[in-house]
């Protein structure tokens, strides 16, 4: 009997340990920045402007490549504004959103942080971001007219601007010059259509499967989304319905999956496997976004063998490249809003945006700063990323993008493994996506 009680208690304890993770939200880590709070409060009662006392502004982001550049910019900013210190808080992409969610629930958001189209609705609709309208109106450095309209509208909710556009990105066709030379195929250029891509992939695929012509991985933004919009299809309609059952979408998906079916592309699902495939010489061509630039430039194999160009057009000449951009946001409950705005104002101003481009951090959103970014990198012909902006298509999003993106992956993978026809997979994807959209 004693033993039985012991084992039951033991079992219950072990189960409880995992339950514990669910019920309580981990409290956001107290940042050292919470200290100057009191001092800035004292200021306001003393009638002095907040910025005259030294404050530390926390700055949350998820890209370690970019963090290096921002350390430099933060240093320069502090030199110009000796009272404001910037503390960068770096988290990986998925940890970033888990941590930000917890911090928002606990009221301990970083003073300033990056925002993404996938998550803007959730944060904006719950007042987890500071409304920047008054700050923007009062500023002589920030005017929403100076940024691409599509980007501005992503971060505008109910007429309130919740983030200042930071950068944008498009997708390019990366190709291995050495492999092209070997196979005697002409390099891709802006005249290419899907059929040219297919023919080239055929010539570049080796019969022993040690080298494939094209990487048609199961990935949306750096994969089939581009095909769908080039073909005039859609992923999400204006009235928030799935576009996967659109005949144009299915047609594009069929063409995309054909590369896998005909053995011209390896079958690849995992995110990390994609960059492995291209950086290890498994594929001759692949779609990758402009944000990979610093990673690819630092990779010896990539910088020696690769170049990049615009995406091929659909057979009927339709062009598109998936376009997305980040924004700078401020926590709604920060006690250092003025200093936080100063930092964001600098980052969003022409001066800050030029600096971001010069340092090669990202394609700055500010109109007319693109040349500075193009000149920042001599390894690849990166002007193509700018050329594609004129027909770029905003990455499809709704209120719960990350949910239905996962659900559609689950439905679509059968098409890549050959378990389902592409049409069936697309119809399944439309069904699960619509179900998820009704729950929004």
């Amino acid at each position, binding site marked *: 009997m004693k033993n039985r009680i012991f084992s039951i208690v033991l*079992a219950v304890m072990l189960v409880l340990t*995992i339950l514990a993770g669910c019920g309580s*939200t981990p409290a956001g880590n107290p940042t050292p920045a919470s200290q100057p709070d009191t001092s800035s409060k004292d200021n306001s009662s003393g009638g002095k402007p907040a910025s005259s006392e030294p404050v530390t502004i926390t700055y949350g982001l998820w890209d370690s490549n970019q963090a290096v550049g921002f350390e430099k910019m933060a240093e320069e900013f502090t030199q110009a504004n000796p009272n404001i210190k910037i503390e960068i808080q770096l988290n990986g992409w998925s940890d970033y959103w888990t941590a930000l969610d917890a911090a928002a629930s606990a009221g301990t958001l970083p003073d300033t942080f990056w925002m993404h189209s996938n998550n803007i609705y959730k944060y904006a609709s719950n007042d*987890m971001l500071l409304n920047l309208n008054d700050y923007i109106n009062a500023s002589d450095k920030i005017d929403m007219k100076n940024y691409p309209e599509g980007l501005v509208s992503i971060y505008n909710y109910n007429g309130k601007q919740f983030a200042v556009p930071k950068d944008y990105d498009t997708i390019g066709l990366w190709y291995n010059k050495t492999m092209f030379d070997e196979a005697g195929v002409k390099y891709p250029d802006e005249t290419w259509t899907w059929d040219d891509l297919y023919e080239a992939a055929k010539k570049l695929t080796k019969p022993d499967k040690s080298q494939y012509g094209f990487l048609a991985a*199961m990935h949306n933004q750096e994969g089939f989304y581009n095909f769908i919009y080039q073909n005039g299809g859609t992923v999400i309609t204006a009235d928030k319905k799935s576009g996967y059952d659109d005949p144009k979408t299915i047609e594009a998906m069929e063409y995309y999956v054909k590369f896998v079916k005909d053995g011209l592309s390896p079958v690849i*699902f*995992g995110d990390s496997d994609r960059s492995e495939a291209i950086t290890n010489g498994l594929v001759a061509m692949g779609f990758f976004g402009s944000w990979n630039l610093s990673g690819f430039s630092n990779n010896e194999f990539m910088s020696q063998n690769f170049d990049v160009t615009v995406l091929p057009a659909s057979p009927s000449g339709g062009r598109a490249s998936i376009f997305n951009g980040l924004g700078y946001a401020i926590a709604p409950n920060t006690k250092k809003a003025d200093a936080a705005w100063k930092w964001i104002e600098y980052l969003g101003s022409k001066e800050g945006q030029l600096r971001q481009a010069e340092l090669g951090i990202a394609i700055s959103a500010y109109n007319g700063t693109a040349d500075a970014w193009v000149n920042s990198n001599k390894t690849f012909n990166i002007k193509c990323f700018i050329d594609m902006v004129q027909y770029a298509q905003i990455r499809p999003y709704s209120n719960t993008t*990350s949910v239905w993106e996962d659900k559609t992956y689950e439905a679509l993978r059968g098409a890549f*493994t050959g378990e389902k026809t592409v049409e069936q997979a697309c119809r399944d994807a439309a069904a699960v996506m619509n179900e998820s959209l009704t729950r929004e």
Partner: protein
Amino acid sequence: MPKNDLDAAYQEGLKKMKNQLSRAKVNEWLWGWFLIAPTTIGLIVLNIIPAIQTFYLSFFKSGDFGRGNIFVGLQNYVRLINDQQVWFAVRNTLLYTLLVVPIGVFISAVIAVLLNRNLKGQGIYRSIYYIPVIATPAAVTMVWRWLYNHHYGLINYVLKQIGLKPVNWIDDPDIALISIAIVSIWSTVGYNMILILAGLQEIPQVYYEASNIDGANAITQFFRITIPMVSPTLFFVVITSVIQCMQVFDVVYMMIDVARPSYDRTVSLVYLFYNNSFKYLDKGYGSAIVMLLLLIISVITVIQVRLQKKWVNYTN
């Protein structure tokens, strides 16, 4: 009257003694409670209260940032019953447990028996088998992911060298669960081995000596002495391993993305709970999934405890 007096005095004395006894007992109880307080408070604050909150949360549709939860009654549970993926996860979790526990316990028992002898370099072997337990599961899984890599992994390289076909360890739905089980067995064998070894060393040598005189051979000794004597330890190892296996998360999470074709055949209940609670931010539904897991573990544990009478021997 004197008899009555005596009686009264006796009664009074008895009462006094009783009082004293209970006072001493109360004192002892207080000390007992005081001494277990740190653990108990920790358990209540960190485990029991959150567990009750989780149960409570499973009746709500959770709002963003923990605000605006809407009571939905049993809706999460109805959705759970109709969700094919939940049943995939139940099947995967049970299948994984059935793979890992018997094989894992068997291997650790064999190693423990081998290491229980007077072996040269015994300490080194014990350390080698124990090292995987010390390593972080995430780091271990990263290394295994490279070994399993379809195109560049060491395992497939070796297979190719000896003329076999490479195996798609991670993406093939029929194989992925086995790949995960291998990692888990490899990383838990050392821990179970140490426990069983401790149990083996508690067996008094006299039993073996006595049976030698009676003419028992090594095999009879193993089944008639070693197994029964070590069965309480084995029971402990099995029951904790089963519970650990039912809660498998890190290896699957690190190895299998949602996009992979093997996802439906490998997703565990805890992984599904994690995705729903923290990725899709549907904490109410996630809580319902964990409640299902609690129910399954409880049932399995009760069955195991019932069955223990049949095979576990407690001496004394």
